[in-house]
């Protein structure tokens, strides 16, 4: 079954744990015609910068790129909501022929005048890379005229994959860091990198750290603000989540401002607790921080663990498959499934690195399928072969699961529930339970046979 679903060229991007010594090929351009689930460079930049709520996000290109990313992620803001609007230069044929710089200049000036943002990000798209508009020059000119930072994001869609987009976003943000005032910054201060405040997750995480006595300087980028980014270099530590979306920024800040970083994940109990302990260990000059971290974990678990028992009993022995954008999230999901008694039988990502996949094969059970840059053909074959009970992914994975009568948990754009933190573990278990235990599966063809 599985074999015919796999392209010859993609054989080495799939590994079955236990078959042979671990080897997987990744970080390649998607195979033409394979219907990859990946998006593009622009997408990578857009999702990382998008939650900065008081900045103007102008997409320089034809209308599609802006319209397909309008308010897509549900990244919440506690204040301004400029990020939820979709701005575009909507390039037309004559702009493509004669160049789009004039239109970009006029659009930027118009929008900055209308919205008075704290900064503007200007995204390059495929076509801008081809017609050769000098984005940087226009941005520089508008910055000088308006007095706000106007930052080009070099995110031409075809110049790599999402990871290249993350790097372009980090380069743009780096222009802001270091320009703000950092006086009176407490020593026990951190930046939270790589949480995008979907469903309000950032607020939850931030609150855990505050309960430990830590000051959070900048959320990068969930519920993000330009001024926070500008003074982010005043923090003592960067706490970085996610598969490298903001890792480049942390690296640059380490180089330029000597700010060390720790990598964490807020999904699942162990990883969430470790995220707090890692920060407490860093600030070991004050042992009360660790004590408070332990107190937070104890408090949260005392109510959470008994509740999870119910879900674990019901879900025990069920099989799960995971396909996500970045592999880092998959690590936590593997552990989270284990906690509720479920077995992960397939795990994959759009943009994992060799180290990511190495880690995945280390933490999964024998026989687990590990896959890079997959597609509907493969994913549906794996779901069937492994008789999966629940698939976790994003919008594009959902119809694959549902069409086949497999339960589904959205762990990406369209979720409205917090899945991070201790509370998120509870919601995750509840959501998995709600889908897996629904009576509707009784009626689908898969179960009728």
């Amino acid at each position, binding site marked *: 079954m599985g074999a015919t679903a796999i392209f010859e060229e993609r054989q080495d991007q799939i590994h079955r744990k236990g078959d042979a010594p671990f080897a997987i090929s990744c970080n390649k351009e998607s195979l033409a015609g394979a219907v990859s689930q990946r998006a593009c460079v622009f997408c990578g930049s857009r999702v990382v910068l998008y939650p900065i709520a008081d900045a103007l996000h102008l997409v320089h290109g034809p209308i599609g*790129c802006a319209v*397909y990313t309008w308010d897509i992620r549900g990244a919440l803001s506690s204040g301004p909501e400029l990020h939820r609007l979709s701005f575009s230069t909507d390039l037309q044929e004559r702009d493509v022929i004669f160049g789009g710089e004039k239109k970009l200049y006029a659009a930027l000036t118009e929008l900055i005048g209308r919205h008075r943002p704290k900064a503007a990000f200007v995204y390059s798209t495929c076509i801008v890379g081809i017609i050769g508009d000098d984005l940087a020059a226009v941005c520089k000119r508008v910055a000088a005229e308006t007095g706000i930072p106007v930052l080009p994001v070099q995110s031409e869609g*075809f110049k*790599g994959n999402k990871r290249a987009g993350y790097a372009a976003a980090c380069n743009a943000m780096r222009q802001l860091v270091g320009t703000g005032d950092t006086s009176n910054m407490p020593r026990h201060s951190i930046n939270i990198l790589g949480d995008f405040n979907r469903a309000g997750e950032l607020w939850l995480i931030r609150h855990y750290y505050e309960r430990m006595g830590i000051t959070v300087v900048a959320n990068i980028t969930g519920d993000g603000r330009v001024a926070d980014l500008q003074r982010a270099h005043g923090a003592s530590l960067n706490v970085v989540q996610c598969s490298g979306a903001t890792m480049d920024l942390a690296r640059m800040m380490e180089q330029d401002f000597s700010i060390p970083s720790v990598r964490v994940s807020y999904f699942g109990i162990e990883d969430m607790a470790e995220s707090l302990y890692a920060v407490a260990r860093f600030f070991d000059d004050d042992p009360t921080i660790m004590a408070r971290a332990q107190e937070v974990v104890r408090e949260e678990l005392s109510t959470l663990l008994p509740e999870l028992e119910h879900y674990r009993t019901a879900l025990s022995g069920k099989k799960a498959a995971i396909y996500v954008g970045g592999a880092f999230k998959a690590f936590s999901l593997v552990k989270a499934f284990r906690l509720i008694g479920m077995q992960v039988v397939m795990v994959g990502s759009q943009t994992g690195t060799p180290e990511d996949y190495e880690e995945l094969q280390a933490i999964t059970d024998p026989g687990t399928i590990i896959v890079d840059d997959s597609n*509907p053909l493969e994913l549906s074959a794996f779901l069937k072969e492994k008789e999966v009970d629940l698939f976790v992914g994003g919008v594009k994975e959902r*119809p694959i699961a549902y069409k086949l009568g497999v339960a589904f948990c959205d762990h990406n754009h369209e979720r409205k529930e917090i899945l991070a933190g201790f509370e998120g573990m509870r919601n995750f278990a509840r959501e998995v339970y709600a889908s897996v235990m629904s009576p509707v599966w009784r009626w689908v063809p898969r179960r009728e046979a």
Partner: protein
Amino acid sequence: MGKKLPNYISTTNACKLCRPLGACLAFRGVEGAVPFLHGSQGCATYMRRYIISHFNEPIDIASSSLGEKNAIYGGGANLKQGLKNVTAKYNPQLIGIATTCLTETIGDDVAMILSEYGREFGAEGELPLMVRVATPSYSGTHMEGFHGAVRALVEQLATGGEASDTVNLLPGFVSAADLRFLKEVMADFGLTATLLPDYSDTLDGPALADYPLIPKGGTPIGAIRAMGGNRATVEFGRTLGENEGGGSLLAERFGVPLHRLGLPMGLRESDAFLAKLSELSGVPMPERHAAARGRLIDSLVDGHKYLSGKKAVVYGEEDLVVGLTSFLAEIGVTPVLCASGGKSGRMEAAIREVLGDLPMAMPVVREDVDFHDIEEMGIALKPDFLLGHSKGYAMARRAGIPLIRVGFPIHDRMGGQRILHLGYHGAQQLFDLVVNTMIEKKQDDSPVGYSYM
């Protein structure tokens, strides 16, 4: 009229989609077809995501996944490799290839690449048919892409063939429920029809045991080939350009008489459509529709007072807006602003025509606008509700007025593909929805909370 025309340079919250998306949807409505985008990987993925969020159905759109060196040296090799791979795994009868802004700008000659491909791989076995359409996203909207793909299918597949009694029906971009309805109507008149495209099954299919790489359904390719020999073409779209869509091509090339009508929405546009079918079939209006028409008029009477004096802002694709405007005017709602992101230049005239002699002032009609413009102009006109797709929600929420969801996309409700807009049956559903929305609003806002209307 006479209002200040906003003339902003920037676009905020566009009321249109890009051209290749429309082509993908149309290709999805052909039996055994796979839509294929020649461009960078992101386009296909973004459009899949956008379409999935409306239909809740799989839609596999292949891509030539161009990288940086392809953008410089040309995308021919990737296109060929992509076609080869899609053919190997999907085994399609047809691949519908739409370009993107990237490949249009770097100047890839798709026709030439395809003929090379045919020479290189034709010997290895029968190749799927290839239909290509130019869809630069910097020109036109998803509607130009949709009609362009339909025209390309007809242009590249249809032959003169044998004369047949079959009628071609080119409905434009309507819902899956609309397509099913149209097939029923044709059958009710005893007409054999070729409906192009037909994604009523491919984008609204049943639960299955196996993943449908290419779902069942769609317009059979043989039927498209035979369109040139059919006796007539009925094509919806009052704002369609003379050479847009497939109807004019069939008329020019094969002499198939073309009957262009508005989308059959509301009473009079449905009358015109059914009268046309009556004329073509020689069959009087079937009882089912006569009865539905009677019930519709009866309900318009029952509900008219709840709509008296009500005002609406209508937005979306131009032909849809024209149809909805015609319907609203019939039921006594005043359309105050009719807006579209499209710019055919024909929407105002079409609206004037459908309003006809109804005692209704001409609404403000604006093409080439975005939701920033629509909100700025529309809310000042104090509408009682908005009528359009789900992207008007933010504006409706800010204004505190109801949004009545029709068309595409509907990203915040279930079942957008199952909304019936067409015929007396569709008008009935829309009417009940509109009148009940107004009654509900009044009830909710009332301090009493009446339990009768």
